[in-house]
């Protein structure tokens, strides 16, 4: 009989090893999945993991996809540390995109330096506004933030769909549900010519550093961590739980909003009915895979970005459905949660009594 025995102290080694073991298991399960789907395993493997990053353009694309995941992932991991479960980042991302695009379209044909900073500011406000609803309802009315933030994501998707097919539709666009194309002043500067890598990648690195500083070097970061690890101790220490809920949600909303703007003003360049392939949800996995640590999130974001690129590449070369990406992401999170048991428990063989 195999049983679990609690360790006296959590194993630090396993904390680092668990994500690697989970990743290895995901690869194995992935090979099995490919075999089940009846595709040549090694070609699929190559298409999924190697091909996307075997060119400079591919590596730049990795940065394009990783940037929003890292920006949101860092903010979410700070919230998750405090046991604030904002899972509506996707909706906050969409609102950021809408607000930023509204500025871009309002200043359409104005070629001035201030347009882009104003857009970023607007997206920050948009994301925070959307996140402030669950924060308000949680702190005032004790409403579970998981359900409200998620419900608001569905509302945001519908709102965007309505805006691009109505008020924000391109007047010369033959009724297609799209906004006008942004002017150059409203587009993010590219940082690597010949690729789509934009300023967002630098911002992502900045967010990682800022997140690390916040968590490890400030009183607020300490309060957030205490609230998550031992809520009652936090209360006795005089940390206001409501304030932490607000901080965690506004941080998540703001970062998701900016990430949304980086999508519409970066790779997309206009407002479309869909502006994100689920970055807000994937960022949840990124946060867990990165051990709720900003530096970990950086690496986890790159891994998850690869799963998007791999899915696209496998779709093109092997005609596999794009949904493979979601399956991979889900499996990775499952394996991670399963291997996490090794941090707090050791596996022992129990004699049947």
């Amino acid at each position, binding site marked *: 009989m195999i049983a*679990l025995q609690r360790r006296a102290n959590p194993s630090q080694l396993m904390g680092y090893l668990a994500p690697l073991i989970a990743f290895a298991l995901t690869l194995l399960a992935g090979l099995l999945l490919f075999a089940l789907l009846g595709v040549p395993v090694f070609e699929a493997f190559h298409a999924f993991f190697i091909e996307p990053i075997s060119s400079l353009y591919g590596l730049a694309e990795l940065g394009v996809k990783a940037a929003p995941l890292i920006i949101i992932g860092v903010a979410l991991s700070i919230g998750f540390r405090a046991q604030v*479960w904002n899972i509506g980042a996707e909706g906050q991302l969409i609102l950021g995109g809408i607000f930023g695009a509204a500025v871009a379209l309002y200043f359409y044909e104005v070629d001035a330096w201030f347009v882009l900073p104003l857009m970023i500011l607007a997206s920050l406000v948009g994301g925070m506004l959307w996140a402030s609803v669950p924060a308000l309802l949680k702190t005032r009315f004790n409403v579970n933030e*998981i*359900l409200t933030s998620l419900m608001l994501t569905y509302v945001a998707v519908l*709102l965007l769909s309505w805006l691009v097919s109505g008020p924000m539709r391109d007047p010369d666009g033959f009724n297609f549900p799209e906004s006008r194309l942004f002017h150059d002043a409203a587009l993010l500067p590219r940082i690597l010519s010949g690729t789509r890598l934009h300023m967002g990648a630098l911002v992502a690195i900045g967010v990682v550093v800022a997140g690390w500083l916040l968590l490890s070097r400030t009183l607020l970061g300490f309060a957030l961590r205490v609230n998550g690890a031992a809520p009652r101790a936090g209360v006795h220490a005089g940390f206001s739980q409501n304030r932490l809920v607000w901080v965690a949600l506004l941080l998540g909303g703001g970062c998701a909003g900016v990430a949304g703007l980086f999508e519409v003003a970066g790779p997309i360049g206009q407002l479309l009915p869909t502006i994100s392939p689920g970055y807000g949800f994937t960022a949840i996995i990124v946060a867990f895979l990165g051990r709720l640590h900003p530096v970990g999130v950086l690496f986890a974001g790159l891994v998850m970005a690869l799963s998007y690129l791999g899915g696209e590449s496998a779709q093109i070369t092997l005609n596999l459905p794009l949904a493979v990406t979601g*399956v991979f992401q*889900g499996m990775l999170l*499952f394996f991670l949660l*399963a291997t996490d048991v090794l941090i707090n428990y050791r596996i022992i063989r129990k004699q049947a009594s």
Partner: protein
Amino acid sequence: MNEILILTILTIITAATPLVYAAIGELVVERSGVLNLGVEGMMLAGAVCSFATAHYTGSGMAGIVAGMLAGVLMALLFAFLTLSLQSSQVATGLALTIFGVGLSALIGQPLVGIAFDGLPSLNIPLLSNLPVVGQLLFSHDILVYGSFILVAAVAWFLNKSRAGLVLRSIGDSHNAAHALGLKVIRVRYCATLFGGACAGIGGSYLSLVYTPMWVENMSAGRGWIALALVVFAVWQPGRLLLGAYLFGGISILQLHAQALGINVPSQLMSMLPYATTILVLVLISRDRGRIRRNAPASIGQAFHPTT
């Protein structure tokens, strides 16, 4: 007018039934002290598997069974991770939903665009021939009747049976229950699998009756609404039925708004169920005492016999 009214009520029943299944399952799961946020993922798995089975075998019943099994398998994954490996219920539930969305899309790829005949109505002899009442109450498919029986059975089980008492006591204090020699983990496994089966049937209803076809992500948040319904019902089966029918009514408003000449963009009408969910959660949750009295006390907490 009478015809329209009857038709409206019939659509409400169709919209409410999947919610009843998913929510009653989750209610039992939560009463045992487990919070499974993966209802959406289990519904999607159920929807796609039942549609595939029904399509290839031509049998609706086989489809329902397949959907139920798919939900059970997904729930088993969740139960193994949270109950045997002590993983976080919140994180695992989210993972189950993300996984379910991806997996169902993958399985459903070849099924997109195929239609299914739907389930046959089980007309109850004589009674279904009654005017109005016959159409409203006695000529539904088997799953509609089943949903009412299921809710009644769960209500009886939780409040009147010994096993239900065991389940509730485990949900309220797993340590005390364990000290009394009750099998905490085993009961929670059973409850979680039951929840999976119900969510799977709820998914089946979507793809076999409600639409009836397979569309990627077709549950469109109903799994989450089911979770909200459990809170709305303050963990009482009877109230849950009421809530599900309320939501069924709201979600079909958009279909009838146009017929009634209300000219609001369809996207804004589609927001209603989600907005209502938030509103309802506020109304229920603001009464902290009521939540505390009714919510299972050890919900969401991991249990390990040595601690």
